[in-house]
């Protein structure tokens, strides 16, 4: 792992008495090379990830329209405005609602699918895996636009199909009605990212050793018992990881929402990232300070979810080691 022991071993091997000063110089040069290797990451990551994280705090304390360089210090005023803005709370509520609805659906359904696909007795399992994974590789922003047409109330295939089957009499504006838009978007989201969670479950199932199943079968366990007594308990640590990963990714629905509904109708699907985008970039008078305050609050929320995740993964790893 480290080179320090390596070099001392070499010194013994060569035994050409490299003085302590030589060694020190070589180590010093090595330190320099290490930082040369790290430089691009430090520079790029520092500028485009670390600096923005810190700068957001500074921006959130100023009033600034983006057209002029002029920024006026306003203290906590932006935060007061954000807290007083019903639309901010609306976007926050929608983000959480979306997350809470989408995650259990996705996690449970993909587990069922993965259990089926993992069985050698299921015919065409490779084909199914490919089909369910397909949407994952496609461009979310383009899928979002295509879905506008798929769900079109007049000529979209979904409405035509439902009318033909006699489920509905007139076209339903799935994405244009504020009562159905969020749920339609949630459905599309589950459809789009189903494959990733399925693959995670399949990878998790692969970690269960075959010997465990064989031993249980010899003891006379049936298929149902195998599932309940062996597979599911062994998957429990993965359940934590997969659920938390899904929560995290459900926070990032900007592409899909903006292209499919644009946050509408009447802000019914405006998640926090769209709120930030709208106040910072697409408003006639951009309010970058206000948007930054919203971004900082959103960042803190994501951070809290991430922290929760870290704790979850730690305990999952412990549980795995205990097995």
């Amino acid at each position, binding site marked *: 792992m480290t080179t*320090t022991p390596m070099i001392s071993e070499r010194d013994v091997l060569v035994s050409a008495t490299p003085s302590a000063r030589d060694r020190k110089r070589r180590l010093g040069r090595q330190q320099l090379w290490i930082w040369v290797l790290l430089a691009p*990451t430090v520079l790029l990551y520092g500028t485009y990830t670390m600096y*923005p*994280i810190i700068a957001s705090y500074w921006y959130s304390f100023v009033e600034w329209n983006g057209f002029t360089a002029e920024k006026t210090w306003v203290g906590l005023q932006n935060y007061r405005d954000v807290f007083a803005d019903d639309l901010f709370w609306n976007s926050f509520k929608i983000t959480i609602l979306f997350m809470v609805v989408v995650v259990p659906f996705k996690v449970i359904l993909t587990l069922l699918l993965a259990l089926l696909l993992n069985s050698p007795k299921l015919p065409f399992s490779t084909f199914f895996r490919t089909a369910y*994974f397909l949407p994952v*590789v496609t461009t979310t922003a383009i899928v979002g636009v295509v879905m506008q047409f798929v769900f079109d109330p007049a000529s979209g295939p979904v409405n035509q199909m439902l009318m033909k089957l006699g489920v509905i009499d007139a076209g339903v504006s799935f994405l244009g009605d504020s009562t159905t838009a969020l749920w339609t978007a949630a459905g599309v989201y589950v459809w789009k990212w189903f494959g990733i969670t399925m693959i995670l479950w399949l990878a998790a199932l692969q970690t269960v050793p075959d010997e465990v199943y064989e031993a249980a079968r010899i003891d006379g366990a049936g298929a149902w018992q195998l599932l309940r007594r062996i597979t599911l308990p062994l998957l429990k640590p993965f359940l934590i990881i997969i659920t938390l990963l899904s929560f995290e990714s459900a926070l990032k629905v900007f592409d899909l929402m903006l292209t499919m509904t644009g946050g509408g109708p009447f802000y019914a699907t405006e998640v926090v990232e769209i709120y930030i985008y709208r106040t910072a970039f697409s408003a006639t008078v951009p309010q970058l300070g206000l948007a*930054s305050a919203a971004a900082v609050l959103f960042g803190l929320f994501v951070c809290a979810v991430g922290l929760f995740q870290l704790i979850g993964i730690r305990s999952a790893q412990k549980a795995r080691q205990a097995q």
Partner: protein
Amino acid sequence: MITTSTAPQRVSGGRVRARRGNRRTAGWVARRLPWWIAALVLAGGALIWVYPFVWMISASLKDQLEIFSSGLGLLPDTPKWDNYARAWTDAHFGTYMWNTIIVTVVTVALVVIRCAMAGYALGRYEFVGKKPLALVLVATFFVPTGYTIIPVVEISQQLGLLNSLTGMIVAMSGAGHVAMILLYWGYFRGIPKELEEAAVMDGAGFFTIFFRIMLPLAMPVTATVVLMTFLATWNNFFIPLVFSLSRPDLRTLSVGMRAFVGENSTDWAGMAAAATLSLVPLIILFIILQKQFIKGFSGAIKQ
């Protein structure tokens, strides 16, 4: 389940075996039936999963009227290839495609180089500041673009990089990709140190070792990183969107699609052709490199 029924068969005599054989076929069907029913249900699901893409390709070959009148029929009367011509030239998808290719290729190259270098330094050496650096990287693993976007735009403006493909590339290769560093980190850590010692004996310097020995060894990781970064960059939307707000000629495919529909909301056939142009390369790539894709995506759970 199967083994229990075959075991007594071998020991028992001819007549018993014949009778058992009959029962076995009936039992076999009964046992297999649930799986075939499951497959049927899954096939229905798979149809829903692929349908939007099939519909999109079908609509891209119909003319405007046909899309509205032919209802659910998927086959066009005669394929209308001029939808593609319209999308490619009139709707500028040729330009968007070219922008996307440039941005993706350069970003992938930059990300591979910077992540391999950082992963190598972190995986094989002790140095001052390693702990804090690792901590910062892990802590910012999940930072969403919506959080960092305003300062990113501001700093790009100050550097004169806003409204340029260069700025887009630099911003995309600078944001995130922590997972890629971790992949290289883990891989380089596992390479035995004897290899390095032998190279040092042969007089190889620090960079020779890295570029000539370590980087070629890490090919499997590089393949995964290239694939994942390619996908993330090609599909990226937020950064290209804000970098091309005042320069429509710099749009990538994902951004161009939204603009196209915003301007021509009635041109369904053109929309479908444009979407097909943007998505089909990805779909073909996925079908060819399926195993690698799945390996890349399932990497997260093993860490």
